[in-house]
């Protein structure tokens, strides 16, 4: 019989999910397809127009920045919720 210290598997799973919030996502969101579009939407995945674009993205890895830990990032404040035109000036 193992306790939480000597039996790492269950605890390790919980630990991993706590450390990596995306692991709490459903599988299809993590590795599969996101939600489809609205009625009338056009899909880019199988569009031959974009077939060559991915090849041009081979060097797309960002090397100058280190990803933030999502747990240390303040919650997003949301979007304005409206499309008002520009008004201010700096």
């Amino acid at each position: 019989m193992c306790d939480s210290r000597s039996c790492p598997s269950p605890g390790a799973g919980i630990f991993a999910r706590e450390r990596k919030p995306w692991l709490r996502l459903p599988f299809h969101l993590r590795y599969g397809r996101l939600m489809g579009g609205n009625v009338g939407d056009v899909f880019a995945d199988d569009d031959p127009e974009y077939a060559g674009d991915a090849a041009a993205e081979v060097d797309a890895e960002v090397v100058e920045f280190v990803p933030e830990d999502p747990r240390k990032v303040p919650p997003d404040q949301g979007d304005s919720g409206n499309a008002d035109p520009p008004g201010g000036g700096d």
Partner: protein
Amino acid sequence: MPSASGLTSDQRIRCRDRVVQAAKLSLANKDQVSYTEGPKRWNGIKNRRNAALGQVAHFGDCSSSCAWWLWNGLHLLFGLGDVVNGTNWTGGFTGTMYEHGMVVQDPKNALRGDCVLYGGPPGKHVAMVVGMTNGVPMVISQGSEPGPFYLRFDYRPDAHQIRRYI
């Protein structure tokens, strides 16, 4: 079928370079960027701040920041109309972003400059894909005052859709 922007393949590469350069400029100068949902969030476009010249947009929320980054490539470089929000580059939010562009269903097919929308329409947040790490889209997100931040695209549990405007 033409691309979302109507640009050719070579033009899209140049456009993505410019768009991502603008997003990285905001990230690298986050101390000069303030989060606001007020009218000033459109100052980057209104004042024609050109990221290629090192000009940062000093105000923005998530959607206006994505719009300014895309505007740098689509409009400043190629003179295109507003294919992001459909407001002639004068406004917009996640709801109008949901109404434009093309859907990318599989995250592994995401390209730089694509936008990740969080929450179903009209949306709660949006961030921009600036690269891939081990096949996972990485985004720059302007969602709060300390931002922008560089994160995995699925840093929030409500990643709903990826849309392409380039």
